């Protein structure tokens, strides 16, 4: 698999323990334990939810690669990266520094 760095030299990775469920308004993210522990968030953006699902199913959780390969508009990309920063803050996504970009 090719791992593509975010332009700033970082890549976003969806944590494997996060569960994602589509809903009519967008979707729900859940991380172990709900009210007692972990986290639960409602997301009212279908495109963000689809991106998360695609990243998990087709890019082994590598969100940066999923964005670079599947989103063409610069404005959409920027909005998605902003959304991912929020998901980092809420503990669903990790940012990994990319020291070398590898292609296999």
């Amino acid at each position, binding site marked *: 698999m090719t791992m593509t760095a975010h332009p700033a030299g970082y890549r976003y990775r969806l944590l494997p*323990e996060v*569960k994602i*469920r*589509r*809903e*009519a*308004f967008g979707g*729900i*993210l*859940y991380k*172990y*334990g*709900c*009210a*007692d*522990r972990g986290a*639960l*968030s*409602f*997301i*009212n*953006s279908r*495109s*963000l939810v689809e*991106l998360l699902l695609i990243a998990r199913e087709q890019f082994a959780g590598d969100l940066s690669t999923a964005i670079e390969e599947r989103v063409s508009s610069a404005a*959409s990309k920027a*909005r*998605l990266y*902003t*959304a991912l920063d*929020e*998901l980092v803050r*809420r503990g669903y996504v990790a940012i990994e520094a990319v020291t070398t970009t590898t292609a296999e």
Partner: protein
Amino acid sequence: MTQFVQFLGRGRSGAKSCERPGPLALHPLARAAFAETGKPLSPAQVSGSQRFLLGGLSAPITVTWEITAACNLRCVHCLSSSGKRRPRELTTDQALALVDELAEMQVFQIHFGGGEPFLYPGIWRVLERCRERDLVMCVSTNGTLITSERARRLAALEPIYFQVSLDGATPETNDRIRGQGAFQRALRGLERLAAANLSLTVNSVLTRYSFPELDRLYAIARNFNAKLRVTRLRPSGRGRAVWAELHPTREQYRDFVAWLREHPDVLTADSFFHLNAFGERLAGLDMCGAATATCCICPEGEVYPCAFFQAPEFEAGNLHEQSFREIWQRSPVFAFYRQMGAGACSGCLRYDLCHGGCPATKWFVLQSLQGRDPECVLADSPTHPLAAKQETPYGAITAAVRCSSVTSQDGACQEEA
């Protein structure tokens, strides 16, 4: 793989599972109670996570599953009046099929309770199936049946969380509620679970007697590397008989809110959101999730809006007759519940924080869903005069108040991308 829990054979057979039941299927008491609450809330009237729940979700986030009514204790406040096994409790095969169905629906978490879950004959197979199906488990136990060997076996099922009940920090306070010797036995269970490095919470129902012991409960929890979770006493099951005697006083509630602020790591989940009306939103889910984010499956397959709402008139369906999915999607009780109006609270400017309190508590105390929560923190406030008076078994409850400003804090991630 879809396996519905569809095991007919109970007395009330003949439900046509493919037809959407009409409102007429509602119990008349429930229908009248829902009607009294007035118009459904519009999206503009709600904020935070609640607006995502308005129309109902495709599946619950958490299902509370009271897997057996058998219990070796007889707590005076037991919400499900547990004690003996009931004749129509789900068999292990039925329970396994239910786990599969909940997994297919993408339920995130199952919260096992009872009764005492470890008295259910198929409990290990059910927990193991949850593990196989990647469902997060939380088990509420009285802790008295946890041996070291069981604790080690449970550790292999991670992620699994335990809530061990202690309703006081001393044998005197705890055992007057949970029975002679329960305190020491629960501590031994906690010790064994902690020794197996399991994720633990000490679960404590707040009563006027346990309130002075909160600091000591906190210390006990810390001693086991556990979190303390304080929950609200509700007048359901055997709790109805003791609610008036045990529920905390208004002053205790006010001090409790201050205490929570000093102990931000103490969990309350959603149970105290009516206390938000003191003016500050407490951490945790902030609204009633019954029939929207959660529901309760009872030992004989009855499904209710939540564990505390086990009133026959609000039974949403039964797994001996319908699949869980059908009940979740088509039950008139759930459909009406999701459209409940604000009732007497509709004029309250703290509605956004309090949401009118707990519907189950209202029902069991007032026999109404339209009144204010019986423990409404503004009920006696001179600045909030009565607009209407409701006589209840516990005195007058005021309605339609105007309070001070509303704060709105959104707990949900809502990125538009």
